[in-house]
């Protein structure tokens, strides 16, 4: 492996699309390392009985950093679901803020610990996720984008969803409307071939979700979600299209879910040993690491430093989050309606 500093050796053989530099790639990799370390910690906290439930982003990291890099967090909007841990970090959420969600502690930024981790609304970025009900964010994202179109704002809305969500009626209705009205939305599917235990072939008779784009008069593309550059390019093209008035797109990033659905699940019940073995080849971390090393962007020292600093950050964040109390009980009564609680007026 070459030990050359960033941006000198081997630079020519990695053709980066506009907007993507070696620095950005390295930064993305740093976030992926952090995400992985944090993800492992969260799983451990669950096993220790400290975190009630967790869905892991392991396997989805490259797809998520690529997606965020292709957008502009200062003006774009993100409707996520429960698996976008890496995207959250890319958008500047701190590890402590993340752990507070899983530990349901006071000061939780998204929902005041009223909701599961990754649900609520972000105070600094226009990122939100109202519910755990799979697929509901798709029409909502279309509405968000419609408002921007009506107001002539140049924001683009990214609607994350999984292969499971693609079966919902809401997915059809959302894409159809987006196609009719050319709203600036990117339907971003992280297809990991499973809705909990239901494999793709029991979810749909066709092999790809992107192939449905045709039915909605929008472009659809299927990309290897462990290939950060290809993913970036696909999302960027969709974002640019939306921003320039070209309307909606569907981008399907093929990934593997490296862990069971959540900490409540046991995927050996429904995944074969070969399937579990094969999925490991799709781990985006080693893939990314090899790619960066091959092109001389990453060296041993930097890699070690990323991993070490990720570990430290996660340790510190754990200490910080665990030191916090649960939210005061009385906080639960506020904010049902602007006018008050919303029960009968005499109560």
């Amino acid at each position, binding site marked *: 492996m070459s030990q050359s500093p960033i941006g000198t050796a081997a630079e020519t053989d990695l053709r980066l699309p506009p907007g993507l530099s070696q620095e950005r790639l390295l930064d993305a990799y740093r976030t992926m390392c952090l995400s992985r370390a944090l993800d492992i910690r969260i799983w451990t906290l669950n096993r220790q009985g400290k975190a009630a439930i967790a869905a892991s982003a392991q396997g989805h990291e490259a797809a998520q950093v690529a997606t965020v890099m292709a957008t502009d967090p200062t003006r774009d909007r993100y409707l996520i679901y429960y698996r976008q841990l890496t995207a959250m970090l890319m958008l500047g959420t701190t590890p402590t803020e993340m752990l507070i969600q899983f530990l349901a502690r006071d000061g939780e930024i998204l*929902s005041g610990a009223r909701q599961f981790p990754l649900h609520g609304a972000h105070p600094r970025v226009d990122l939100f996720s109202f519910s755990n009900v799979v697929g509901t964010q798709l*029409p909502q994202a279309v*509405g968000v984008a419609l*408002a921007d179109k009506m107001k002539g704002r140049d924001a683009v809305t990214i609607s994350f969803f999984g292969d499971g969500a693609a079966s919902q009626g809401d997915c059809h209705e959302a894409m159809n409307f987006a196609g009719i009205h050319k709203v600036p939305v990117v339907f971003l599917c992280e297809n990991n071939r499973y809705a909990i235990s239901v494999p793709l072939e029991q979810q749909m008779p066709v092999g790809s979700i992107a192939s449905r784009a045709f039915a909605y008069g929008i472009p659809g593309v299927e990309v290897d979600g462990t290939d950060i550059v290809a993913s970036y390019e696909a999302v960027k093209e969709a974002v640019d299209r939306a921003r320039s008035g070209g309307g909606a797109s569907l981008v399907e990033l093929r990934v593997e879910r490296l862990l069971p659905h959540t900490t409540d699940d046991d995927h050996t019940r429904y995944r074969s040993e070969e399937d579990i073995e094969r999925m490991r080849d799709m781990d985006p971390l080693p893939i990314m690491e090899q790619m960066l090393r091959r092109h001389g962007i990453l060296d041993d020292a930097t890699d070690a430093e990323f991993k070490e600093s990720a570990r430290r950050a996660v340790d510190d964040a754990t200490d910080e989050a665990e030191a916090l109390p649960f939210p005061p009980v009385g906080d639960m009564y506020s904010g*049902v309606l602007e006018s008050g609680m919303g029960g*009968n*007026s005499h109560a």
Partner: protein
Amino acid sequence: MPEMTLIEAVRETLRSEMRRDPDIFMMGEDIGPRGGVFLASEGFVEEFGEDRVMNTPLAESSIIGIALGAAVNGMRPVPEIQFADFVWPAINQLVGEAARVRYGTNGGKTAPMTVRVPYGGGVRGGLYHSQSIEVLFAHTPGLQVIAPATPYDARGLLRAAIRSNDPTVFLEHKRTYRLVRGEAPDEDYLEPIGKADIKRAGSDVTLITYGLMLHHSLQAAEMVSQSDGIEAEVVDLRTLRPIDGETILDSVSRTGRAMIVQEDTGAVSVSSEVSAIIAAEGFFDLDAPVMRVTPPEIPPMPFSPLQEAEFMPSPEKIAAGIRQLDEI
């Protein structure tokens, strides 16, 4: 003060609000050139354009879901569900999502949207154009549910709903659209959400009702006043969530007798809640059981005209109920 029908009150309020605030837009099936199937938006697309008076595909879940997305992003959508009977596909976006946006984001996002829902029977609508669908909404924390019965209230409450910062289900009784006329000033007045209104004063018995049944109840009150000298106080709930327990309890404390009149079937309904409020907090004021006049427990409501008529609580049936209650 101009006299107008209830549908005119709705239309004029929508028009003046649309003129006042460019963030308001309407969406729904056939609301464009058709003007809505009840003509609530007649002439609107010509005045406000296709963006603000948007014909949608036949897909209620997305009508509400998209409105919700727009609402959290700075707009004030006023989606229309063409008939209440077709709100079921949208329940997930309305009860599951919109109702919890404020609470579930700890106030980080809000969903100022007013979902207009023409509902109710007595229009030869059969099983699927007659339903009262208020129960689930009235049960759901995070929603406001309004059901005006007069043009005056329709104007003041629709305006209040559109300007409020929470998701509101606005129920318009189809039978009242053209049946009910009344005075409704062109002024910019608001009626308070969550406040019932005493539509007739009386000392012998309290009738609590809403929607079309307000008018049947008022008729019944006149009937028993004339025939038996019984004076019924008639409380128009107007808002079904939150319910104005205070006004109800205050009236019952004066009359000692309560009867709830409702078009929706009775089991687990708004009428149950009003009964429960009185049974819990007005118990010592009561001189008689809390009565309810509601339709039979069958799917609302048969298409056949005689059966439809039998289904609806009529002024006569209500009057009979009042007499019975008065005698206890």
